[in-house]
Structure formats: structure tokens, C-alpha cells
């Protein structure tokens, strides 16, 4: 008959798993507002997007697939919503995974379906966005984009509405673009190291300058990305679920908006960055973040229990 200590140290896995499932399920059915303070990195991310001149052309690497949709899709969707509001023209490409372009397009279609339902203008292929497809070997691809954007994207085609595919450089999105320096913003939504390759490769060019970099990364990548953010190599980043939640809150509340006094999110760094209150701001972040607390709490609890168990069985052994 094992003592309590031993029991506490050897709870059957299946039970633990069941508890985890319940803990991550039940809170989903209630929407709880969690007090939260957007990280500075996320504020910079949002502000940079908001301060983007209307109608600018944007390069966006969509390097995520279904496996990390829990974090990446939320960031992708929110970022896209902001960019569409800024009337940005976006060229999507992927250097991480052959599936990524497909996944990104499906996500865009989903977004358009939502917009149709809300009878908002659609985010039109060829007019507003093009898909450059997948580029094997991230390092090489980023090298190409940095040194010779036209060469890197040459021969890529996309579809004008109802017409056969045409060269992407004839689309309103890339027309007349020859150097990466002509593009004000390069965004990466990634679940892998492609962001690191980009930072290493896209170097400032004395003549044309170079685009601001914004990363939306998974929680795993936060440590590495933080390094680039500190050294000011990137303008801001949206890290993990916390980042997504921050972003959604910023879309709702803005920064120092409507004024420094009444603002929900205050910052010395910015004057006033508007927010656009709307139910459509509530995305994966708002849905998942409360639940995350319970899961983390469960883990901490289990670790404590295990250690108590160890302590107890030590004592039992002594007596």
C-alpha cells in the first residue's frame, strides 16, 4: 500500500489528460474579459500598421499552416483586417512550407466570406492582393528578395478576375516595383525560423532604404524575436497568443485614444493612435486567452503537487 507521497507523485497520466481537456474546454463556453496590458512590442506593431500611409504596397510572408493555426491564424486575420482598413495592397509569399500559400488563400477566402456577410467590400485578388506562391529554401529566397526583388519574383503569375494568369509585376500590387526598398513594410506571419532569415538577409540599402519589418510569431519564437526587437532591427512584433490578444485589444481601444486621459491603453511613446471599436475585433485572442490561464495554472499546480509528494515520501521514508 503506497503512501500519500508516492500517490501524489504517480497520478495516472490518463487522469491528468482528462483534467487538462476539461480545463481547456469549459472556459471556452463563457466569454470572460481578462485584464491585460498590451506589451510595448505589440503596441509598436499596431502603431506601425496604423501609421502606414493609405494604399501602400506591402510584402507579407505567410509562413504558417494548419498545425499552428491556434496562434498564427489569429495574428494573420487581425493584421489583415487592419491592412484592409488601411487600403493596403498586399503581395503574399511563403518560404516555409509548400502548404502555406494554400492555407493563406483559404484564410483570405474565409475573411472575404465574413466581409460579404457584413456587406463590406471584398478584398479582391489581383486588385488588392496577389499570391506569389511558395519559394523553396528560405535563405535563398530572402537573399533574392533583398538583392534583386524582380529576379526573385520573375515568372510568377497570378489570376486577374476571370482571366488567365498573368505576370505578377503587371498587377496593381507590384506594378513598377523593382527593389525591396520601394516597399514601405514587410510583414511576416511565421511559425518557423523564416523571420530570422529575413532579418539576417534584408539589409538597409544606402540608395533605396529598406522596408520596416513587422513579425507576428508563435510563442516559441518570442525569445529569438525579442533579441531583434531590442536591437531595433524590427519595428515591433506580435508574439504568441498574448500578442494576438494585445493586438485585438489595441484594435478596439487604440493607444491614448480617444485622449490621453480617457485612454484604456496609455503610452508615452505615441501621441494618439486611434482604435476602431467593433465586435469583429474579437478574434482567437479574445476567445482563447482566458482559457490559457486555466491551463497554465493546472501545470503549476501539478508541479507543486508532485514536489509535495516527493517531500512527503521522503518524510515517510525517514519515519
Amino acid at each position, binding site marked *: 500500500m503506497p503512501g500519500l507521497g508516492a500517490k501524489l507523485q504517480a497520478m495516472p*497520466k490518463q487522469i491528468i489528460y482528462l483534467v487538462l481537456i476539461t480545463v481547456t474546454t469549459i472556459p471556452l463556453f463563457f466569454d470572460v474579459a481578462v485584464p491585460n496590458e498590451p506589451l510595448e512590442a505589440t503596441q509598436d506593431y499596431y502603431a506601425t500598421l496604423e501609421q502606414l500611409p493609405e494604399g501602400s504596397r506591402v510584402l507579407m510572408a505567410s509562413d504558417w499552416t494548419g*498545425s499552428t493555426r491556434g496562434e498564427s491564424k489569429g495574428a494573420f486575420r487581425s493584421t489583415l483586417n487592419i491592412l484592409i482598413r488601411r487600403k493596403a495592397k498586399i503581395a503574399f509569399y511563403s518560404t516555409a512550407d509548400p502548404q502555406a500559400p494554400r492555407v493563406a488563400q483559404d484564410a483570405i477566402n474565409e475573411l472575404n466570406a465574413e466581409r460579404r456577410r457584413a456587406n463590406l467590400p471584398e478584398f479582391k485578388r489581383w486588385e488588392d492582393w496577389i499570391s506569389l506562391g511558395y519559394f523553396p529554401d528560405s535563405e535563398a529566397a530572402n537573399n533574392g528578395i533583398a538583392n534583386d526583388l524582380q529576379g526573385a519574383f520573375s515568372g510568377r503569375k497570378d489570376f486577374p478576375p476571370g482571366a488567365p494568369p498573368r505576370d505578377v509585376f503587371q498587377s496593381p500590387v507590384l506594378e513598377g516595383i523593382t527593389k525591396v526598398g520601394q516597399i514601405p513594410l514587410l510583414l511576416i506571419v511565421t511559425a518557423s525560423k523564416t523571420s530570422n532569415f529575413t532579418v539576417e538577409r534584408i539589409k538597409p540599402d*544606402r540608395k533605396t532604404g529598406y522596408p520596416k519589418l513587422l513579425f507576428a510569431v508563435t510563442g*516559441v519564437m518570442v*525569445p*529569438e524575436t525579442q533579441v531583434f526587437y531590442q536591437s531595433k532591427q524590427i519595428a515591433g512584433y506580435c508574439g504568441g497568443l498574448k500578442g494576438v490578444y494585445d493586438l485585438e485589444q489595441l484594435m478596439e481601444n487604440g493607444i491614448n485614444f480617444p485622449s490621453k486621459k480617457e485612454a484604456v491603453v496609455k503610452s508615452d511613446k505615441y501621441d494618439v493612435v486611434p482604435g476602431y471599436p467593433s465586435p469583429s475585433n474579437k478574434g482567437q485572442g479574445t476567445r482563447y486567452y482566458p482559457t490559457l490561464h486555466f491551463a497554465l495554472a493546472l501545470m503549476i499546480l501539478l508541479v507543486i503537487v508532485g514536489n509535495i509528494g516527493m517531500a512527503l515520501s521522503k518524510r515517510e521514508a525517514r519515519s
Partner: protein
Amino acid sequence: MNAFAGIHAVAQMTVGDQYRDTGWVGIAVTFVVASFILINIYRARGGRELFIRRIAGLNAIDEAIGRATEMGRPVLMVPGLSTTINAIAVQAVNIFAYVSRIAARFANPILLCCYNAAVYTYAQETIRDVYQQEGLADRYDTDSVRFVSDRQFAFAAGVSGLILREQTAATFFLGEFYAESLIFAETANSIGSIQVASSTETTQTPFFIAACDYVLIGDEFYAASAYLTRKPILVGSLVGQDWSKLLILLIIVIGSLVNTFQIQGTTEWERKDGEWTKIETRPKKISDTTMSAIFKPQAPEVTIDRPKKPTPAPTPSEGGN
């Protein structure tokens, strides 16, 4: 004041862009490191005994195989998830060659699961060699080295399925591992099989540490083959690597001291495009130090006129534009 005038002379030439200013330093260091490695390989070949410290994780390998033999259950090996064959995969397969050699002697079944066809080809070839050298070619089953999938999580599902069905007694995860590392480790743990693991992805090491019996951290992985086989070439190279690490160590220690003292006080000089220009006095920044001058080459802009290429005649296929 302008300590780099001498080097700027290079800029008078039309070639050598990457050497300009202090650009040559990087190439120089690379060659120093390379020569450290080669010199020591040469020394070791000369029959000189070189010392390697004990690495716990590597002593575990023999123990693990021994255990598997006692239980008569297979040894499972995964050479990581490299997207094509590279030194990491080669290194892993080389260690596995050592493992399979022992396994072959004890007629112990092995399973080597590959994520990539090129790695699969290499492993297939290598392991067959091992069995042939041991004169046990008849014992070798080509299906024991297999390609599972090259989609990360399909691979994870397949391998953990194998672990559970084959009830492997010893499992080796060496190479590039990402998120799936924990799936393997926990599955293997759940059937009480000994695990020796190592990921060149630092971010995965903590999970192996949490779940595995023995973990090789960082470049203990690269030390492995030298440690196991004691081949002069490998041992020599390992010593060379140590020299190189010492070099980096010195650069860091000396460099940060130099920076510490150079950053005190104020300056009225600033480097712009590789030229020292006078500015109004300001407190020194880290970018004013010798070290940053060495590490951040910034060659001045020069224009060199070359004859233009003959422009290609428009071809019909281009519609003459």
C-alpha cells in the same frame, strides 16, 4: 585619428568589395578557425594522444543497447528532421552506424526512421555497409531502415505508432528536432524505453532534458563520434574546435573590456561610411569603439565606370519589347 586609412587603399582597386574597410576580418577569422581544425587533425594523425573529457550521455549508448539486447526488443533510431541531408544528419547516422554495429553483433533488431529521402538513401547505404563489414549481411533487413514521411507531424504520428507497437527497448533521437521532440520522448518514456537524445535546436533541449534519460547538450552531439570511435581525424578536429572556442572566448573577454574603457568619456569624432568625421562633442556610444569598427565594416561609396555590356538583341519570343 583615421586608423583605417591603410585599409582604404584597397578601395582604390576595382575588386575586393567584401575585403574593404574591415570586411577582411571575418574571412580571416573563418580561415584561422579552419586552420585550427586542420592543424589538429594533422597532429592527431601523427599519432599524438589527445585527451577528451568524459561525456555522460555518450557512455549511456552502450548501456542502452545492452539493455535492448537483454530484453530482445528492437533499438529505434531517428536521425532528426533535416529537410535535406546535411552534416547534422550525417553525424547522427554515423553515431547510429556505431549503434547498429553493436546491435548487429548481438543480432538485435534495429529500426531507423528517416524524415527525408536523401537521408534515407544515405542511412540505407551506411547501415548495410556496417552489416557487411561485420560479415552479417544476411541478417540485414532493408526494411529496418525506412522512410516514414516528410511531413513533420505525420512523421511524429508514424514514429510514435512504431515505438508503441514494436515496444522498443532503447530509442535514440539525435539530430535536428523541433516541436515533435516531446511526442517522441514521452511516447518512448511511456513504455519505459531508455532514451538518448540531443537536438541541435537549442529551444528543444529543455524538453529532452525533462523527458529523456540522457541528453547531449549543444555540440556534445558533434563530439560524439570522436568520443565513441576515437578516430584520430575526429579527435583532432574536436581539439581544433576547442581551440576555436577558446579564440571566441578571448575575443569576447578582451573585446568587452576594450569596449568598457573606450566608451567612457566623450568624443568629437564619428565614423560615417568608413570615414572619421568631426562632430560636436557628445558622450561616446558603443558604435565609436574599435571593436564595432572591426565588426561593422562600412566602406565609403566609390563609383567605378565600366564599359556597358552589349544589350541583347530583342528576340521574337519577347515580342520585341
